[in-house]
């Protein structure tokens, strides 16, 4: 009896969580007229692909959706690559290289920096990029993410627990630091690197406020910033078209999320354990 009640509650809650997402998909196949009619039909009366076709062709309002999604994917992938490289090198040195100067100072400083509220750096970072003439460039959309310390923190724990014997054996065989890093530690940490990659990619791809202000021209927008501009501008209440855009925007990240959920969960519980 109690089990049945819990099951019913769980299903009801699942419906609540999924309903807006299902409604989004359903509306994206309705024309704007039907979308505004206020009916509650999940199966469109006149299903149409027009919202997707017109949206992807960029015919409506000259909004370059494909460009936005390409920007988002590029920025997400490039940012993730940089984070993986920088974090893993730094974490390797901090965890394994005993003669690294200032080692005892740097690590607490990096970990502590995770507590700094983003609002503290937002405006000056904008002014910094502005002074460099880098606003509205890919540099502005990618580089700021490379300073996040989460990757260093996550990989440090992993590298620090790596058995010392293997490394010493390699050193006796004449391997230098770069070889130990690239040929021993990196291949052994594929799974944690994937975890970090998924976490980082989702964070960058979904980031909203920074790309909104760091880009000024339509063709440099990421999809998150672009959708915000559309929702505030001429697309207000063009729900069929808006939802087609949000479905397109959500697909890549939803795939990464569902495929990599196990890894993603691992990353955030690691952060929670701290």
């Amino acid at each position, binding site marked *: 009896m109690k089990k049945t009640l819990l099951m019913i509650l769980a299903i009801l809650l699942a419906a609540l969580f999924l309903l807006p997402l299902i409604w989004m998909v359903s509306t994206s196949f309705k024309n704007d007229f039907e979308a505004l009619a206020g009916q509650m039909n999940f199966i469109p009366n006149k299903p149409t692909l027009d919202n997707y076709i017109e949206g992807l062709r960029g015919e409506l309002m000259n909004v370059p959706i494909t460009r936005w999604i390409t920007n988002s994917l590029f920025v997400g992938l490039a940012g993730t690559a940089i984070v993986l490289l920088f974090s893993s090198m730094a974490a390797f040195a901090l965890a394994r290289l005993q003669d690294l100067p200032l080692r005892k100072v740097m690590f607490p400083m990096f970990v502590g920096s995770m507590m700094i509220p983003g609002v503290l750096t937002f405006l000056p970072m904008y002014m910094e990029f502005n002074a460099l003439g880098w606003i509205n460039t890919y540099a502005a959309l990618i580089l700021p993410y490379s300073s996040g310390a989460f990757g260093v923190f996550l990989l440090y724990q992993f590298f620090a627990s790596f058995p010392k014997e293997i490394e010493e054996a390699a050193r006796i065989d004449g391997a230098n630091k770069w070889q130990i890093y690239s040929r021993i530690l990196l291949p052994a940490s594929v799974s944690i690197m994937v975890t970090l990659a998924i976490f980082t990619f989702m964070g960058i791809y*979904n980031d909203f406020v920074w790309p909104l202000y760091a880009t000024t021209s339509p063709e440099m927008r990421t999809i998150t910033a672009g959708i915000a501009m559309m929702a505030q501008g001429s697309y207000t209440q063009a729900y069929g078209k808006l939802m087609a855009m949000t479905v397109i925007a959500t697909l890549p990240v939803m795939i990464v999320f569902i495929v990599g959920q196990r890894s993603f969960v691992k990353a955030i519980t690691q952060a929670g354990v701290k």
Partner: protein
Amino acid sequence: MVKSTWQSRLTSSLFVLPYVVSFCAFLLIPILYGVYISFHNFELLSDTHEFVGLQNYVTIFTPGTYLFEQFTRGLWNTLQFVLYSVPLLVILGLGLAMLLNALPSKLRSLFRTFYFMPYAVSASVMSVIWLMMFDSNAGFLNGLLGKIGVDPIAWLTDLPWAWVSLTLTTLWWTIGFNMIIFINALNEVPEDYYEAASIDGANAWRKFTSITLPSIRPVMLFIIITSTIASFNVYAQPFLLTRGGPGDSTRVLLMNVLDEAFKGKQVGSASAMAILMAVIIIIISAVQYKIAYGRKE
């Protein structure tokens, strides 16, 4: 250990160099630059910036000035949002985690995915979906109310509904994150504790208050602090859903900070507001930390 040569120390340093450069360029320097900017009359489009010392801060603390109004009203609205959202994010997050743990283990990961899914969408997608759900004429929610004969609600343009809407969307969007961390914490509570309590005849509520809650205390604290910080930084929901309305009643502090900088072009006073906002966030986190751990020491 073999004494290291300067060459060895140099090559070791090269490994941290890329991250350190990035850390300085996109974290340390901006923080210092922000303090510098806040001491100036710094206009976005002007090249000359007059040093004004603490004037921007003084103005923010002077009742009757425009900045004082912007800061205090924004802060009040933000605090309201924190008060509405954080308790629900924590309590319901724990509730969801406990519900999942009570389900048959085969179904657990499926339902976890369902509850966690909204977390994967971006702030702007989340807002646009709910813009449609809340639409006063064509929206799903008012359609639903119509079916059961309830008058439509102006979800985004009436009080208290605007706050209800913002809280609801935030819960829908982010509660999965808290749930995941709670699940992890619940699974680490040793099973024997519960068994021992059962033998002593403890009921479910007693087990919850004397075993579960004390065991997950550090995680609870982590969630309270991260939820508070996240809610303090709320922007996308009021920016896209209520647009700060009705009137200015859901205009949160971060909206006022960014508008002061980008619409008002006054980066100096906006930076002073931003720094004060960051200080408040840090103080609140520290106080929460102190309350949770202070008594032990």
